[in-house]
């Protein structure tokens, strides 16, 4: 059994590295989104150059986060990838169905508040977490 232990230890280490890399990228992205949300009015007094710089940085960090997420998923084993795929498919379906009608609820005055993009992000995040938990339980 010892022959393959080195490469398998490498796999386990790679998984850990991918998780911490994704963690750092997500943290950086959340900070950059927060900065972009409150910065223009509270920190740099609507300075357009600063807003553009922070906006571009936010996009660049977003791309980094996407790449880190892809690397994380590719580094998972086949069952973990399947769990991720099923949860992502469910989330995509919910977002298409919910997002498609949500805007119409606003224009049809079915809801009293204005539909916002971050509402969709919240629904997406919650759906993905619930889906991951449910699908993981299915394979337990």
């Amino acid at each position: 059994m010892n022959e393959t232990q080195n490469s398998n230890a490498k796999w386990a280490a790679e998984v850990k590295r991918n998780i911490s890399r994704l963690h750092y990228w997500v943290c950086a992205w959340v900070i950059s989104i927060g900065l972009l949300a409150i910065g223009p009015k509270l920190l740099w007094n609507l300075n357009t150059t600063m807003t553009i710089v922070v906006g571009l940085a936010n996009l660049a960090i977003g791309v980094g986060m996407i790449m880190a997420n892809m690397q994380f998923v590719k580094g998972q084993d086949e069952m973990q990838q399947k769990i991720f795929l099923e949860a992502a498919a469910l989330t995509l379906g919910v977002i298409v169905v919910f997002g498609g009608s949500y805007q119409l609820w606003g224009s049809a005055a079915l809801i009293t508040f204005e539909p916002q993009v971050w509402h969709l992000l919240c629904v997406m995040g919650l759906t993905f977490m619930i889906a991951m938990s449910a699908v993981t339980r299915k394979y337990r």
Partner: protein
Amino acid sequence: MKNRLKVLRAERNWTQAQLAAELAVSRQTINAIEREKFDPSLSLAFKLSRLFDLPVHDIFEDDNPNNR
């Protein structure tokens, strides 16, 4: 798909974690295969075959009677 993974592993006194480490998969994946909730890919099936030194059809069995 039915399999004899649990028996083969027990015969060798390996834990799920040890087998998982050998195959570079998570312990949960080994557990799901043993409980027949997850069918491994061909590549993982061949890894198991090499590890147990048995042909794939001695480890896995198609549970669809029409395919026998």
